[in-house]
């Protein structure tokens, strides 16, 4: 799949733009704060319907002094040509696919598969478990509609159950009514966990070999799914989940929160058997994050039968030049890549890039 063109108005600091891209390699270059990263963000937003920057609120995407942000992109995807229009004002979000207004943002996910590598990915290894759950959920949702629907349903059940726990604590509801929600939570949660386990099995191989190649083959990267509820030997996910819920009713009631389930699980990343979150160096953590993202791209390509778009934000600029070069090489051939960098010399030695110069929010092809 590749993005053919992107038109935008009112997006962050960017002046109105209309760009035609190369189906293979594209480069945005300019100094810091010029807006080159915002271009990557615009492409991500068009594909997923939200920013890849976790802290970014939707309304911050709208240019200061403007009421509306609008993006329009045309892509060549497995199902043929696809036109996506995304608009956002202070009150609402609008989405059209091929001219048809969409009620649900989830209609968009997976139509234009995308993987973004950016300095924020450092949180994947360093940050809290939420970062790793988000990584898994985004990777899986892009190829499995069922998974995305299960996630949405799970979130809904979770809200209902948390509210009920709170009402039980306050004496407004009967403890007996929790059982039906437990059953719902376990059924839906187990589907999510099983899918994650299956995907981690795939990712483990791919991320492992990527990591070896980038690091020069000295260390082993490991992935393991960490359940929030303890399992006894021979016990299935449902049983363990049910047991955890049953035995911690008082605890959950006191807190008014559901303490077990896929929303509390973690993906454990290890280097040579040690947990990278506690023991990894910054270089190891970044290399592992890159390996995971490249594995995600490879998995999506396999599952969807088309290659996702790759966004590279400065990330290789912070690796040494050999590694940076190596990273781009790993992605060839026929991935469409967008690179944003301040160091032009990192890429200038290479051919075949369509270049765009970004200066004070203005983007122009060279």
């Amino acid at each position, binding site marked *: 799949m590749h993005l053919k063109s992107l038109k935008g108005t009112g997006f962050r600091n960017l002046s109105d733009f209309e760009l035609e891209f190369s189906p293979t390699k594209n480069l945005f270059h300019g100094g810091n704060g010029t807006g080159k990263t915002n271009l990557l963000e615009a492409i991500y937003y068009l594909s997923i319907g939200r920013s890849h920057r976790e802290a970014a609120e939707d309304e911050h995407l709208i240019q200061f002094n403007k009421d509306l942000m609008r993006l329009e992109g045309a892509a060549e995807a497995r199902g043929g040509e696809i036109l996506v229009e995304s608009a956002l004002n202070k009150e609402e979000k609008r989405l059209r696919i091929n001219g048809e207004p969409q009620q649900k943002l989830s209609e968009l996910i997976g139509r234009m598969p995308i993987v973004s590598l950016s300095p924020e990915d450092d949180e994947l290894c360093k940050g809290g478990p939420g970062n790793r759950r988000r990584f898994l959920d985004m990777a899986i949702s892009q190829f499995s509609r*069922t998974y995305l*629907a299960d996630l*949405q*349903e799970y979130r*809904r*059940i979770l*809200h*209902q*159950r948390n*509210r*009920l726990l709170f*009402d039980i604590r306050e004496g*407004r*509801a*009967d403890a007996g*009514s929790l*059982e*039906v*929600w437990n*059953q*719902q939570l376990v059924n*839906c949660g187990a589907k999510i966990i099983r899918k994650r386990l299956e995907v981690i099995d795939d990712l483990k191989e791919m991320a492992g070999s990527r990591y070896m190649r980038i690091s020069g083959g000295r260390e082993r990267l490991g992935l393991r799914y960490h359940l929030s509820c303890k399992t006894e030997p021979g016990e299935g996910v449902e049983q363990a989940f049910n047991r955890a819920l049953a035995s911690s009713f008082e605890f959950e009631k006191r807190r008014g929160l559901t303490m077990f389930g896929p929303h509390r699980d973690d993906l454990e990343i290890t280097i040579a058997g040690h947990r990278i979150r506690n023991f990894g160096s910054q270089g190891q953590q970044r290399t592992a994050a890159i390996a995971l993202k490249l594995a995600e791209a490879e998995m999506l390509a396999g599952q969807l039968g088309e290659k996702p778009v790759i966004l590279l934000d400065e990330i290789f600029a912070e690796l040494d030049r050999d590694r940076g070069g190596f990273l781009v090489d790993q992605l060839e051939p026929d991935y469409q890549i967008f690179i944003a960098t301040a160091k032009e010399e990192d890429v200038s030695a290479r051919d075949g890039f369509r270049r765009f110069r970004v200066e004070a929010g203005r983007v122009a092809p060279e």
Partner: protein
Amino acid sequence: MQYGSPALSRTIDELMKLPGIGRKTAQRLAFHLLKSQPDEARALAQAIIELKDRVRFCRECFNATEQEVCGLCRDPKRDPAMICVVEEANDLLAVERTAEYRGLFHVLQGHLSPLDGIGPDDIRVRELMERLGRAPVREVIVATNPNAEGEATAVYLTKLIKPLGIRVTRIARGLPVGSDLEFSDEVTLARALEGRLEL
């Protein structure tokens, strides 16, 4: 908000109390009514008054009707040993449109939803249980919506009804996930009715 006329403000406020209607839509409807022919607005007002005066809920199944007991419940061709449980009266219409189902209905008038403060006592569960105690029912088909709340309601009903020795089936998941029964097309719904699962 001030609209320069208390009557206009009041109309907008009342319209906004309806489900799915926000301020913008309420304004549009109110201005539409303002511009329409006098009879048109009056006919709407009259229809709403008669709706409240004449229409009530069937004593048996809680479907909307102008009699004590609705036409479906009085129809001798319907099989009284089979009851299809739906959330709302419009879900009942969706099942009826398939022309596949020959049993009776029970309208819960809602679903379990702690977030909205709705528990088992707030929907027509007690009435359903009373009905099952009165009449010999062979099968209950639970056709609540295929979303979190509908599923929870189905699980709850199954737990209550199964011990009575009545067969409980759940409408099969042939429906698009997350969709409401009301919007599904007749073919999928008919297929879902055929392929219902034992709970």
